[in-house]
């Protein structure tokens, strides 16, 4: 919690006059405009705090749930090397979740509360993890496209106005690059392999392309949080800007692989110097977000089961720590 537990929100004006609150808010925005970083104990508007708690915890949940589709292939990875790499990648995703929960806790929320929200199904996580991993090529497509889209989203977050979130993102971005490259290498190996392997790679691209494009979230006209988040410098680019950047860098990579992007309307816009894609099926996106994607129920059930199965371990460790503490306490002070 970066020590802010001492006086959580202690600097908030308790019954301050409206003028005082306005002055604090003005000074806060001035610090943001001057590119200063906000740290846990600094005064911040409650809406800024709540926005960050929501965003960082959703991000943490995404990392944790994101371990499931890939974990599905650890036992079936085609070689010892691929298995070692996949284990390392899945472990990284768990680590990213931990960095992010840690950052969220600096805002005065408890990790247990956030985990409870995920398990109760009241917290959101990235829609992408509600799609199934049907073949080994899906592990390549996830690294290449899903981690690629995540990097595009996350690099600007390294400059987010909230210090602990920005620092967590720096750490995460360094590790994501390995994820993306190992994914592309899997796709390249398959694309240069037998006809069956090429088909498998194409099939994975066919299924993951649109969900990856949707990872950037609703279009700018629909996105309700964008304007305020940009004023607070939590967000630096709009959803559509990042989506366009991703399409522009990914299409040439697909061409190199000799694979076809499943978008018949995709074309090069010479005047604008961009690849222009076809319309996105937002009904699918909304259905997955609402809990009706192919794997929503399965993912949550797996998380609940893991949490319940671990309960006795957590309780035993806490009891052991308690016993050790009492043993080492001077006589008479044991409690």
């Amino acid at each position, binding site marked *: 919690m970066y020590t802010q537990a001492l006086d959580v929100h202690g600097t908030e004006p308790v019954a301050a006059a409206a003028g005082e609150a306005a002055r604090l808010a003005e000074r806060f925005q001035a610090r943001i405009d001057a590119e200063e970083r906000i740290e846990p104990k600094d005064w911040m508007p409650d809406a800024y705090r709540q926005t960050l708690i929501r965003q960082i915890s959703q991000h943490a949940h995404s990392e944790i749930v994101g371990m499931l589709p890939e974990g599905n292939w650890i036992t079936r990875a085609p070689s010892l090397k691929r298995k070692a790499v996949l284990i390392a990648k899945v*472990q990284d995703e768990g680590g990213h979740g931990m960095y992010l929960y*840690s950052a969220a*806790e600096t805002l005065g929320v408890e*990790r247990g509360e956030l985990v409870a929200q995920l398990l109760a199904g009241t917290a959101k996580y990235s829609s992408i993890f509600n799609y199934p991993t049907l073949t080994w090529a899906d592990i390549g497509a996830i690294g290449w496209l899903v981690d690629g889209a995540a990097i595009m989203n996350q690099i600007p977050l390294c400059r987010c106005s909230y210090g602990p979130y920005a620092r967590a993102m720096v750490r995460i971005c360094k590790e994501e690059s390995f994820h993306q490259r190992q994914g592309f290498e899997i796709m390249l190996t398959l694309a240069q392999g037998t006809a069956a392997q090429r088909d498998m790679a194409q099939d994975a691209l066919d299924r993951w392309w649109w969900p990856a494009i949707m990872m950037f979230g609703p279009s700018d006209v629909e996105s309700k949080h964008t304007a305020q988040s940009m004023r607070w410098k939590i967000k630096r680019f709009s959803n559509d800007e990042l989506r366009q950047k991703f399409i522009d860098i990914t299409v040439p990579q697909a061409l190199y692989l000799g694979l076809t992007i499943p978008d018949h309307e995709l074309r090069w816009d010479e005047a604008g110097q961009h690849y222009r894609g076809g319309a996105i099926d937002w009904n699918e996106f909304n259905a997955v977000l609402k809990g009706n994607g192919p794997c929503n129920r399965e993912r949550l059930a797996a998380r609940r089961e893991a949490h319940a199965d671990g309960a006795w371990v957590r309780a035993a*460790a806490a009891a052991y720590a308690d016993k050790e503490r009492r043993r080492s306490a001077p006589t008479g002070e044991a409690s």
Partner: protein
Amino acid sequence: MTDDWPLFEVFIRSRSGLEHKHVGSVHAADARMAIEHARDVYTRRAEGVSLWVVRSTDITASDPGEAEALFEPARDKVYRHPTFYSIPDEVKNL
């Protein structure tokens, strides 16, 4: 209140000769487990040669509201810096 294990702040010495630096936090039942968790969470790529963990509740921090009173007085004491003093160019080794 949830039944979370206590929170520990994690500090890493990236290589010998450098100081420990704060990197984040972990939950753990006790200090030994906190070291093990910190190792798994924060040093998967040889980020360190030594770890410190300390219970978050054991850290006392300065209040940002007092930052001015604490740190502003140092700003106008420029004479504490070597560049405050003008020395002729021909004088060497100063």
